[in-house]
């Protein structure tokens, strides 16, 4: 009998809570525990095909699906925003498969799944931040072979990364890496913060929230427990520095936040606004206003 025979159509339509079968969840859960026990180490896991494409957040979705329960409140962001299409699509996926409550408010979420940003609102103990990671291996673009990079991690041989950063300095006078800027976790593993702008790197350091990273296509899970030391690689004479914007958010007036550049007309007009939409909306609701506020 095929899966499409009469009376069997529901078999296709009915999935387990949070989509994944229990065996898959157990496999991911075991990988998560190992990742937490060895902060920054990439644990191989038998990533599954998901109903969204590889590269579109399948790793983060699998991690969230393995941890989420009926009492959770989920927030999903992409580029810092709750209303980008892929964030909407992933949020809907979990609404349909778990029925959990969702929110856009960073402070109210127990699980936040993110792509490319860490929220501006500081996270608190008990919250879980799930990163979608495309290429989990920080050494990949210096050495494409997994067999080689695994040995480099095993031997704690990270010279090639320092050489790369130093070549930047020699050539440009400063480090020319602006996102996916490598960090060292608890003094041991060089780790990819996922392609967040380096602006967000300091937020990873001694963060009270649990940070989980899922790379579906590359089949790796890693973790940074709360309060863990996360140091961006640098040199004594060229210390790590984050991007600075020379103006505040045009809508809420926030300074010291990451801004998106928005093109407003075809004559070169542009404005800079918060990438974190929740942060920006909250500030505006509190009465803060930028120069182009409503």
């Amino acid at each position, binding site marked *: 009998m*095929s*899966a*499409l025979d009469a009376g069997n159509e529901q078999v*296709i339509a009915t*999935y*387990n809570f949070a*989509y994944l*079968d229990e*065996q*898959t969840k157990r496999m991911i859960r075991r990988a998560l525990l190992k990742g937490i026990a060895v902060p920054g180490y990439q644990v*191989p*896991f*038998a*990533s*599954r*095909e*998901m*109903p969204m*494409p*590889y*590269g*579109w957040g*399948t790793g983060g979705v699998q991690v969230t699906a393995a941890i989420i329960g009926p009492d959770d409140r989920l927030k999903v962001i992409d*580029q*810092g925003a709750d*209303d*980008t*299409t*892929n964030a*909407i699509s992933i949020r809907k996926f979990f609404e349909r498969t778990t029925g959990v409550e969702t929110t856009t408010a960073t402070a109210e979420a127990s699980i936040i799944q993110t*792509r*490319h940003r860490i929220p501006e609102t500081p996270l608190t103990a008990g919250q879980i931040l799930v990163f979608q990671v*495309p290429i989990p291996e920080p050494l990949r673009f210096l050495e494409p*072979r*997994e*067999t080689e990079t695994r040995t480099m991690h095993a031997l704690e041989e990270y010279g090639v990364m320092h050489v790369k950063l130093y070549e930047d300095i020699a050539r*440009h*006078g400063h480090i*020319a890496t*602006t*996102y*996916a800027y490598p960090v060292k976790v608890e003094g041991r593993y060089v780790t990819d913060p996922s392609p*967040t*702008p*380096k*602006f967000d790197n300091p937020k990873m350091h001694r963060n009270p929230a649990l940070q989980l990273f899922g790379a579906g*296509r590359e*089949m790796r899970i890693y973790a940074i427990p709360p309060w863990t030391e996360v140091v961006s690689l640098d040199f004594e004479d060229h210390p790590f520095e984050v*991007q600075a914007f020379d103006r505040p958010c*045009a809508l809420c007036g926030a300074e010291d936040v*990451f*801004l*998106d*550049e*928005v093109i*407003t007309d075809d004559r070169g007009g542009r404005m800079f*606004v918060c990438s974190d939409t929740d942060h920006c909306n909250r500030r505006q609701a509190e009465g803060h206003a930028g120069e*182009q*506020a*409503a």
Partner: protein
Amino acid sequence: MYVAVKGGETAIDNAHKLLADRRRGNRDVADLGLDQIMEQLSLAVDRVMSEGALYDRELAALAIKQARGDLIEAIFLARAYRTTLPRFGYTQPVDTGRMQVERRISACFKDLPGGQLLGPTFDYTHRLLDPALAGGAAPETPEVRDPDGAPMMRVSDFLGQEGLLEPAPDAADKPVPDDIARNPMSYPMDRDARLQALARGDEGFLLSMGYSTQRGYARSHPFAGEIRIGEVELEIAVPELDFAAPLGRIQVTECQMVNQFQGSAKAPPQFTRGYGLVFGQAERKSMAMALVDRALRATELGEDLTAPAQDEEFVIAHSDNVQATGFVEHLKLPHYVDFQSELNLVRRMRAEVEARTETHQEAAE
């Protein structure tokens, strides 16, 4: 005043509605039935089953319909469904020596027991577009062989008798094969895991990789020892029974490539094997798979690693079209946060270069 773009959810819903409309096309044209796809686009169904790693003709047909004929999209649909299925157990190895053969050819021998059996092949068709087919002409009734024919001995078994062909791997050496759908891949891989990855690898990618070995990038002197297409019996061991329980029959294509080999420090001169096994009728894929399998055995056979097709990590990591299409297409997703970071950097570096040039000019004046 600037208002941020909203309404993403409505936009997504509308896009899905438009997709459904375009998929259906002109309503005056009859809706395509899954039976039509299964019967008349059967090689597309076979490809979706093999690369989707799910043997179900009807679901494959549904996937093709849903994907508007985009086979990689259909393969993705099949995989995403497959991944949710519970796993009841593993079948016994299929015995292709007992295959009910519909096509069997060997390029190594003029004739052999069982004969050369062309079967339903494109091979000697003249590739002339056929207006009669467009008109829906009914085909003639073909001659078919008695389906209860005795098992046909494999060419590799003849060659093995003389000891000139390396023996097939002994199942006892690895009683429990790997399962790439359950275990994360790690390099270097054993051949069983590698063959699993190749069996669901992208046909086009394997075709190009196999082709490259024929053009001298790790030449392996291949001969199509045998290609056979037909049905094999699936059986599963049930602890409560003292015989293997039959599950049914599936159609597969098997290619045994025989490669001349001059010997190395590790192995004597002999013929070696490259192996391809694919769901359904998929001759091109099985041949390409066999060429790539043989190339990837370079380390095992003590050959020099000189070419892309011999590079296990390169080939296996890039052979899966569901992974590849996902990551290539993810570039459509917003990346404006990272782009903003790069924008700032490029502006800063340009300003630095301009400042340096100005200083230089002032000094020269």
